[in-house]
């Protein structure tokens, strides 16, 4: 992630400042940043430490927590097939769904970038699903994926195909969730579109002179120039996908046979239905580490495939 260098540090106008001024500035700075600093300590650091402690206890909210060391983690990692099931399906959802979403977003953005008419109309329509929240989407698609009278299966029946039980069949349910996530490719489309407009047109003009075709230009210019944005979309998308909760909670309740028991749903169940706060905290920490490790892996891999234009010039 690139942050624009703060203009303040080297700016000459600062030099005339006296130490008194600078102290006043520092005090105001800390004061004005204090809502975030306090919020960070109270709502992030404190809870994280407390949660780490809780993850090493057994606690049902009603009797005092009992220290059990790493037992929760042992149980989760070596003795809880349900945890691995939810880890598995959450990972599949993220690592199949998000790349497809990003690819679709890139294709749509490329098409929209072809000096077409009604650009703002198409852009709005494609982005609209991203405005609507998870609960609403869940309700819509629960009806559309219905086995008997769902829209998809009705349409399939018209052409003589008996559709699967989308949300009721353990093999299909994750497919349904991935299809549904593609419906929301609009936000990645929008980010891509903004970035596409930043690609210098000279590159395409030069390619035209060399007689390059549309596909060649797409794969040799557009994709390499877009890798930073693709990377950004991937990281954000995967972090979000690993935390999916509303969709399975409302649409399937994790079923059938735990086939859509996403990690956060499993966490929620343990915490707020089984009242196993310690165990749930351990799940939260494993989820956190999982997200951290995956993000680091993607960031590391990015060195091989992400092209930063500024990188040549050095920092």
């Amino acid at each position, binding site marked *: 992630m690139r942050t*624009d260098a*703060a203009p303040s540090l080297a700016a000459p106008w*600062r030099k005339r400042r006296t130490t008194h001024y600078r102290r006043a*500035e*520092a005090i*105001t*700075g800390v004061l*004005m*940043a204090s*809502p*975030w600093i306090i*919020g960070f300590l109270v709502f*992030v650091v*404190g*809870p*994280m430490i*407390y*949660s780490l402690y*809780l993850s090493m206890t057994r606690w049902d909210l009603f009797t005092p927590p009992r220290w059990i060391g790493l037992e929760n983690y042992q149980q989760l990692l070596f003795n809880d097939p349900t945890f691995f099931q939810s880890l598995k399906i959450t990972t599949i959802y993220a690592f199949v769904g998000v790349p497809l979403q990003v690819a679709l977003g890139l294709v749509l953005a490329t*098409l*929209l970038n*072809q000096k*077409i008419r009604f650009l*703002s109309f198409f*852009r709005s329509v494609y982005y*609209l*699903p991203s*405005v*609507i*929240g*998870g*609960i*609403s989407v869940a*309700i*819509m*698609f629960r*009806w559309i994926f219905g*086995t008997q*009278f769902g*829209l998809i299966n*009705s349409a399939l*029946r018209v052409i003589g195909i008996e559709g699967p039980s989308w949300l009721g069949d353990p093999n299909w349910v994750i497919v349904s969730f991935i299809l549904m996530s593609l419906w929301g490719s609009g*936000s990645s489309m*929008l*980010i891509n*579109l*903004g970035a596409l407009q930043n690609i210098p047109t000279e590159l395409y003009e030069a390619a035209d002179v060399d*007689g390059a*075709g*549309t596909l060649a230009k797409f794969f040799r210019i557009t994709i390499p120039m877009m890798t930073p*944005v693709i990377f950004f979309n991937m990281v954000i998308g995967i972090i979000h996908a*690993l935390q999916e*909760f*509303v969709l399975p909670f*409302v649409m399937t309740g994790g079923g059938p046979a735990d086939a859509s028991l996403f990690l*956060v749903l499993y966490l929620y169940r343990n915490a*707020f239905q089984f009242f196993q706060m310690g165990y*749930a905290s351990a799940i*939260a920490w494993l*989820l956190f580490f999982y997200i951290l490790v995956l993000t680091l892996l993607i960031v590391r891999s990015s060195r091989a495939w992400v092209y930063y234009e500024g990188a040549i010039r050095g920092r």
Partner: protein
Amino acid sequence: MTTLPANRSFNQSSGQLKQFLIYAVLITGAVVVAIPFAWTLSTSLKTPQQVFTFPPVWIPDPIAWWNYPEALSSQPFGRWFLNSLVIVLVSTFGTVASCSMVAFAFARLRWPGRDLCFLILLGTMMLPDQVTIIPTFILFRELGWVNTFLPLIVPAFFARNAFYVFLLRQFFMTIPLEMDDAARLDGASHFQVYLHIILPMSKPALAVAALMFAQFKWNEFLGPLIFLNRSELYTVALGLRTFVGQEYGTDWHLMMAANIVFMIPLILIFFFAQKYFIQGVVISGVKG
């Protein structure tokens, strides 16, 4: 989609074919995106008998508009709307006020630890809320805030959504420093510069932040689910869930009517403030 150009006339007709294909793909895509909305609207206007028909009917006959009053009165919907409105308005105000002030401190002032703090702030944007949801719940439970709106509102006043700090900071950096200097020479304090110079100049960015946050808050589900468990305190998003049953047992027509009512504010805001939304997404992506 394309072949190597052989001669000029071939090139032209292949250009037309290309245009045609682009529109064909875009229109098909738009239809696919629109279908779930259209189907929701259609179902919301059907009588229960019409809901379960094959082949599916798109335009209901009669148009059962009375589903809407029925759906809205079957649950304390007015109350939920009010709850959502209060939570959204207050927390949006809190977010914009606190995040813009913090963003100003990061963009304009020098104080010890600033750059380190900014790095940490970027890090918290990546941190899943779920890691802290349990201790946060316990904290608010200890404070006796369960079944109040406070857990959904108070964190907003502490710039808890770091993304908006980032967004506003990026915007503030584009405002020339001379503006501050001139005001400072006139004897304005840093806080006055923020209040009287930077904020008025940043209305578009503040609008982006407010709209994006309000949309997020209207949709928020897990927070209300955990902190509100009396039905008169529900938000609309949480209340929608009470319509969910089995495929056959659900009153789909009522549920879809409720869903449409839930979506209307989101869609209205989106259409009237599209350019702000689009700016926000683009800033977050391109400058990230």
